[in-house]
């Protein structure tokens, strides 16, 4: 035990020589060190600063665009009814309905008030051929080429 304690003392008391000179050298090296080049930031992580009003405006425009596109999709898929007063005093109804609901719409139009004027907005790629009255059907359903 005494031997080990003595060894500890010898280890601690053994001089390491001058450390002030290395200290100064290292300090100078640290101070004169060129700062590392900043890493290139990927485009998707790059940040930009915007004035707040501009940011709010951009957000509003984006939201408006989103809402309008969502509405147009909903109108084309779900259909809608628009009722406007015609200049002559009558009432004008505008319907936009999915293709599979057209027949039901026509039935309701044909069996109702004769004074009703309906404007049907159908997709341009749907071809309709008259098959009797008032029924209408798709060309593919009633093709004359069928045997």
């Amino acid at each position: 035990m005494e031997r080990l304690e003595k060894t500890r003392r010898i280890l601690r008391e053994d001089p390491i020589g001058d450390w002030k000179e290395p200290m100064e050298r290292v300090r100078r090296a640290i101070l004169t060190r060129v700062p590392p080049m900043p890493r290139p930031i990927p485009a998707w992580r790059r940040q930009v600063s915007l004035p707040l009003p501009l940011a709010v405006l951009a957000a509003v425009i984006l939201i408006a665009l989103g809402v309008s596109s969502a509405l147009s999709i909903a109108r084309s898929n779900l259909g809608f009814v628009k009722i406007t007063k015609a200049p002559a005093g009558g009432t004008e109804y505008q319907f936009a309905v999915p293709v599979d609901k057209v027949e039901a719409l026509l039935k309701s139009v044909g069996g109702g008030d004769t004074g009703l004027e309906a404007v049907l907005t159908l997709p341009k790629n749907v071809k309709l051929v008259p098959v009797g009255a008032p029924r209408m059907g798709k060309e593919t359903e009633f093709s004359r080429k069928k045997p």
Partner: protein
Amino acid sequence: MSNTEYARPPSFDMVYIALFPVIYRVSLRVTGDREIAEDLCHEAFIKLMERPYLLPDLEQSKYWLIRVVKNLSLNHEKRRNREKAAYAKLTRLTSGVSESSDKQFLKKETRSDVQTALDALPYNLRAPLVFREYGDLSYKEIGAILGISESNVKVRIFRARERVVTALGERDVYVS
């Protein structure tokens, strides 16, 4: 420790002035080479400077720096072992190289007996002994740095001291 010290961590300059001697001493005792010890200190303090935030007090700074020095010195030790192995292989192949020239190649500078005894220790015994004697770290801290248990640290330090005693005894260094 006062409240002010808790509130404001020591600046880089304060840490450098207070801890350079300790870090240099630890680096020197682990590597046994002044130039390499200086390089290790340089790298360790650069890493400290590049940290995004300062460490809260000097004790934690010392612990952090010694941990960095340990990683750097371990890399150096591995490189040195590779070089030694390559040199040994070369001397086996080349005839006419004397023992004294081998020693001159490996040890260019004069070392104290204590440093020679430390150099003779394997790294896994030398590092814990140096961290304990020159870094004043606790067994627990040394265990955390080296990734070993506290009891293992004690065993290693005991064995290291025994070997140093033997080495120094053979040289009749401590005749009191």
